[in-house]
Every structure is written in structure tokens, then in C-alpha cells.
């Protein structure tokens, strides 16, 4: 086997992109310092009256965000006694907030000073949810997807509720297969702009672009590793499509597969050491596991038994315990989740494809009949969030 041993090639020559995106509205500046407490079920929070010129707007918007999350009971009266209390002041869009627990005292005291009140409220809402429940909120997360509504396939971004759709690519011939870096500052995608497919990297803050694959043959299916530095993708320049792992810092790549079939759709485990991808060797795509931490010779690549003869578009849940994928059974497309490495499979949705997990692992998005839809795994509810926007495919939720 030539897992990470066979080939190393130089692709691309531009320096890596870094720094300068801290102002991005969906990038929480406080995520690194978050500290989570236990997640009480049905915890309640009261929002005191917010002082300051934009205090009432900030309180109203925060109330809406927390209600929308469905994670906390938000008490309406400012003086109500909840399990948690948030006191804050807001002037000119800036928010100074303090979250206090009835039992543990002060949980955090932070200032949110992004240019817009709305962005500060969303970041504060996610911080509150993380501090109380221990899992990420969704208010600042983003979804990318492909649509042909402009006449060519282009990539768009929207909020988790389908609002604020805006176009990210304007490739003259089409842009597909998006993958966001973990901090959502970069997006890798497949471009046909030069007449042939290539993987490009787009800086979402500055709009700068560069090619990742300076090679002949097809290049597609890029997937950011959790470290934000490595990228898995499929390239065909060797004369057969293979899975490669690129290092964006050194612009080098290593071949990580050995197949005479058609590999596609790589997906990283949250630990960054394992990767699922599908290979079609003539009987439909099946899922394979590449374990880069395996010391066993020849043992790095194994088939993962999904329970389906046709399985592709895998994506690991944020906790790494489940895999969602597209399956085909008896002529129907299915969105399926299955425990990893083994366990029960669950058909989440029929006639739907390309699932992607929400950052909190409580929802899946997928494409169904050309619409972008969301499934609440705890409530078993399905809901379209973008309809009549051309044919939507390949949605990805920022993790």
C-alpha cells in the first residue's frame, strides 16, 4: 500500500493565506476562550433590562436568537429568576454582557464590538448557549451550497435559517463542490473557469483566490481537514483518479489511496487522523476508511461497512460518533446516519441527498427535490429552508 508513501508533488506555488479575517461577522472572537459548564436539561435564562442607546434592540434580538435556538427557556420578564441571568448594556451596537449562574456565579463577562449590532447579538447568543449547554450555537454558523439559479452552477452562502443568501463565486463556467475551512475564512471549491476542473481557494474576507491544483486531469471533491491546513481532494493527473492530501502551507501533496476505481467525496473525522471517502470499482460507490494514525502496514485503508451497497457523500458528526451519507436502495435516494465504527443505521430522509451536520450535531441539512432542507434529529421534523432558488445541491454546514 502506498498510504502517504508513494508520491509527493508540488502543486500550486502561491503562499498560503493567513490572518486578517478577525472582523468577519460570523467568526466568533471569543470561541477559543469559551469554557463550558454542565448542560442542564431545560435550563432557563432571564435577560435583565439592557441599558444604553441600543439596549432595547439588543435585548429583543437576543431574545429572538435564544428562542430560535430551542436550547434554553427564555424568561420574558426582566426580573424573572432563571437558572442563568444575563445582564448587559449596549451602545452604538457594542454589547457588554455578563452571564451569571444561580449556582456557580459569574460564567463570563465579555465585550462584543463587531461593527454591527446583529453580529454582536449572534455571537453573544452562541457564547451563552455554549457556556450553558457545552455545545455550539448555530447563530453565527453558515451554510454553503451550489445552485444553478443564475444559469451556471455557482456557490452561495446563507444563514442557518436560509436567510441572507449571497453569492460567493462568479465563475464564468461554473463553481461546485464547496468546502469551508473550520474557521470559515477560506473556501475550497472546484472551478471550471479555465475550461478544465481545478480546485481553487477563496479568501472569504478579502476575496483573493488562488489555484490549489496546478495539474492536468480532473481535480475535485476538496475537503478541509479540521486543522484548516490540510485538504483532501481527488486528482487524476497520474492517469487514474486518486485521493490526495495537500498541505496548504507547503503546497505539497501526498497520494493516500491505491485504487483502479473512481474515488470521490472525502470527509474528515473531527480528530483529523481518519478520513472516509467513497470508491466505485464498478458496482457503485462504497465507503472506505483511511486511518492516517494506523501503524499497521497495509492496514491504513479499509472498507467501512455502511450497510448499503451504494453509499457516498459521507460526513462525520461533530462528535465523530456518527456518519451521515447518501445511499441508494431499491431505486430511492436516502439520507442515512450510522454509528461509527458500527451500530444502528437510521434512514433520516427519503428522496434526499448530500447530508451535512450542523455544528451542534442536532440537525442535518440536505438537498431534496432541488430545495435546501433541514432535519431536526431530536424532533424528527423536516423543513425546507430555501426553495425556488434554482436546483440546489452539495450543501455544507460550517463546522
Amino acid at each position: 500500500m502506498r498510504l502517504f508513501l508513494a508520491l509527493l508533488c508540488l502543486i500550486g506555488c502561491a503562499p498560503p493565506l493567513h490572518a486578517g479575517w478577525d472582523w468577519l461577522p460570523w467568526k466568533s472572537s471569543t470561541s477559543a476562550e469559551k469554557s463550558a459548564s454542565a448542560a442542564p436539561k431545560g435550563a432557563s435564562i432571564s435577560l435583565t433590562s439592557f441599558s444604553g442607546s441600543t439596549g432595547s434592540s439588543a435585548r429583543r434580538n437576543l431574545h429572538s436568537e435564544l428562542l430560535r435556538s430551542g436550547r434554553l427557556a427564555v424568561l420574558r420578564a426582566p426580573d424573572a429568576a432563571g437558572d442563568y441571568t444575563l445582564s448587559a448594556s449596549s451602545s452604538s451596537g457594542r454589547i457588554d454582557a455578563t452571564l451569571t449562574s444561580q449556582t456557580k456565579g459569574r460564567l463570563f463577562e465579555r465585550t462584543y464590538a463587531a461593527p454591527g449590532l446583529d453580529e454582536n447579538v449572534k455571537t453573544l447568543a452562541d457564547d451563552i448557549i455554549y457556556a450553558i449547554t457545552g455545545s455550539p450555537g448555530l447563530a453565527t454558523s453558515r451554510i454553503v451550497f451550489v445552485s444553478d439559479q443564475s444559469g451556471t452552477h455557482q456557490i452561495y452562502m446563507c444563514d442557518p435559517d436560509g436567510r441572507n443568501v449571497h453569492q460567493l463565486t462568479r465563475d464564468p463556467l461554473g463553481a461546485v463542490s464547496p468546502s469551508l475551512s473550520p474557521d470559515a475564512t477560506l473556501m475550497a471549491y472546484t472551478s471550471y473557469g479555465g475550461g478544465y476542473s481545478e480546485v481553487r481557494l477563496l479568501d472569504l474576507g478579502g476575496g483573493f483566490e488562488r489555484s490549489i491544483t496546478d495539474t492536468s486531469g480532473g481535480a475535485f471533491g476538496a475537503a478541509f481537514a479540521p486543522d484548516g491546513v490540510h485538504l483532501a481532494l481527488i486528482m487524476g493527473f497520474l492517469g487514474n483518479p486518486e485521493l490526495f492530501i495537500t498541505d496548504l502551507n507547503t503546497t505539497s501533496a501526498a497520494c493516500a489511496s491505491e485504487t483502479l476505481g473512481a474515488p470521490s467525496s472525502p470527509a474528515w473525522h473531527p480528530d483529523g487522523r481518519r478520513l472516509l471517502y467513497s470508491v466505485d470499482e464498478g458496482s457503485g460507490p462504497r465507503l472506505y476508511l483511511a486511518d492516517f494514525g494506523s501503524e499497521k502496514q497495509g492496514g491504513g485503508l479499509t472498507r467501512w461497512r455502511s450497510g448499503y451497497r451504494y453509499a457516498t457523500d459521507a460526513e462525520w458528526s461533530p462528535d465523530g460518533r456518527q456518519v451521515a451519507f447518501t445511499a441508494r436502495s431499491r431505486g430511492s435516494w436516502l439520507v442515512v446516519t450510522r454509528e461509527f465504527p458500527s451500530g444502528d443505521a437510521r434512514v433520516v430522509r427519503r428522496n434526499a441527498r448530500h447530508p451535512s451536520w450542523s455544528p451542534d450535531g442536532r440537525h442535518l441539512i440536505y438537498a431534496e427535490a432541488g430545495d435546501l432542507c433541514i432535519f431536526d434529529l431530536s424532533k424528527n421534523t423536516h423543513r425546507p429552508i430555501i426553495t425556488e432558488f434554482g436546483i440546489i445541491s452539495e450543501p455544507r454546514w460550517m463546522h
Partner: protein
Amino acid sequence: MSRSHASSLALAVMLPCLTHCTGFPVATGADDDAALVYALGALEGFPSPLTSILQPACPALPFTPSSLDVEGRHRLQLQRVATQWASTPQKLIVTGYTPPDLPKDHARALSERRALAVRQHLIELGVEPTSVQTLGLGSDFAPTGPSSHTIVIYREENSRPQPMTPPSDDDALPTGKAGGTVAHHRL
């Protein structure tokens, strides 16, 4: 990973040079009988069927949905293409298509794999490796392109540029335009 990178340093430098200079053979698989697979040459100078009007070198090659490799019914057509190339060498672009109902990334991989198999067969029939490029489009250009399991071999001869019109800024607006509207729903 770093150890393997270090041990492959020489090849790391050589490989891109080789791939950009000539289509060189790469032995693949553990099977000694497996044919040498020829890496692709430099892309420079090759037109694209996406940006140029190109003539097919032969009728389209239909593939059965599960097939990855050249089938018996393709061989006569490919022999004719190779014979024609021997008399009049020209650049060939092997382009793969799939039906639109397949998962998108799988469709790209499938069409690329078939295109590479056809390229490999053409090389074995005597076509110069550097004269053949591949393009796996899957269903990314359906329905304007073929919408079936098909390989089309385009040739450079008689090609002429096709004007490209980038989408206007108006096309980018997601709401209130002819392309459709956005329905907002709450989680």
C-alpha cells in the same frame, strides 16, 4: 507522514516536471499484469469543449451505468480514432458525462475515471500520451451537455473560440429576480 515526505523528496521534485513534460508511464496496483498507466502531459495548448466549439473525433461512446472501463463495443471506434490520429496527429480531449441524477462528486469521479480509461486505451493503440487530455464533467453541465453515461472524444482540428459571457452582477442577486425567489423559514 513527515518521514515519508522526506523519503519521497526526490520524486516530489521530479514528478511535476515529468508530468508537465511528457505523459510518462506509472505502474499501478500489485498485479504485475496491470498495464502501465500513463500520467497526463501538460495542459497548455489544449482547447476545452467548455470554451471552444470542437468536433467529435468519433460518435459518442455510451457506457453502461456500472462500467468503468472501455467496453468491447467501443474498440472499433477507438481504433478508428487512433488510425486517424496516426495519419493526422491532433490534440484529443476525452470528456466524460453522466446523468444528472447521480450524486455530484461521484458523477465527477465516474466520468473522470471513464475518460482516463479511454485515454489509456488510445495510448495503447498508438496515440501519443501528450496528445490526449481528459475532462470529467459528471452532470455539472447537464442539460446543455450530454445527460447520459457517455464519453465524447473531441479533437482540436477546426476549433474556433466561443465567446464567454460572465454573469452580470444582476444575476447574482438572490431575490426578486427571474431566477427564483428565496423562501425564508425559521429553524
